[in-house]
């Protein structure tokens, strides 16, 4: 299975485990979609994720909080959350207002780590080939 297909499997698995997550995508840190599941206009979401990530990274660095881990935004009609996934990618999730945020964090951190391995692994293979 290609890395992209494996990432998509991971996104779908996450959505099955957490039905309150209405959409999931993995983007490169520069804002390009690597894989997405049930997100309308994924390109825009990925681009905005990269913009938010830029600000978040500057904020964590300026305030001495170390490398970026996660970003949670709550709107009146739900959540948009971004989690670090290795060195080159992020995982962005859209969730309903009544989402169990505790579980969202637990599942997304796990998925982010797994997706990070997949993306970093694929990049390494590209470099060595």
């Amino acid at each position, binding site marked *: 299975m290609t890395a992209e297909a494996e990432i998509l499997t991971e996104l779908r698995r996450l959505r099955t485990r957490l039905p309150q997550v209405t959409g999931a995508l993995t983007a490169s840190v520069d804002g390009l979609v690597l894989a997405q599941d049930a997100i309308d206009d994924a390109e825009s979401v990925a681009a905005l994720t990269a913009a938010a990530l830029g600000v978040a990274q500057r904020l964590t660095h300026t305030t001495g909080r170390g490398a970026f881990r996660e970003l*949670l935004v709550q709107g*009146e009609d739900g959540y948009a959350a971004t989690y670090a996934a290795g060195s080159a990618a992020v995982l962005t999730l859209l969730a309903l*207002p*009544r*989402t*169990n*945020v*505790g*579980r*969202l*964090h*637990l599942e997304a951190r796990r998925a982010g780590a797994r997706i990070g391995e997949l993306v970093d692994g694929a990049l390494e293979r590209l470099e060595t080939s």
Partner: protein
Amino acid sequence: MTSTGPRAARPRNTTHSTHRKGSANPMGNTETALKDAMTSIEGTIGVALVDYSSGMALGTLGGGKDLDLSVAAAGNTDVVRAKVRTMELLGLKDEIEDILITLGGQYHLIRLLKSRGHTGLFLYLALDKSRANLAMARHQLRRVEDMLEV
């Protein structure tokens, strides 16, 4: 569910950080109450005060590598929500006082807080079955709830 009106209109903000040691909590006496539960209830393995609108713990004490209390907080939020929803579907106009889950080696006790300022919170208590006295633990947990209300 138990919430009234739109979420945005609620005055209370949900806390989006897990206070592992119960420090810097929004209610000054959370830490004291958790400490009291941990020391006075025989057989306690871990205790947590959980916001079930977010699934996050406001304070935790005990636990350790065999019992990750932030996982327990998130997972038991689903338990509470499922029971609330079931009662709604059954048309039961009542409220949950507590939920007991009996394992092979442990008791897990969930007590929903009832006072005005604390709706949407529950106390979670994990007990070692061989050392705990269930009736006493339930009684004492009620006292811990009262401590939180001051």
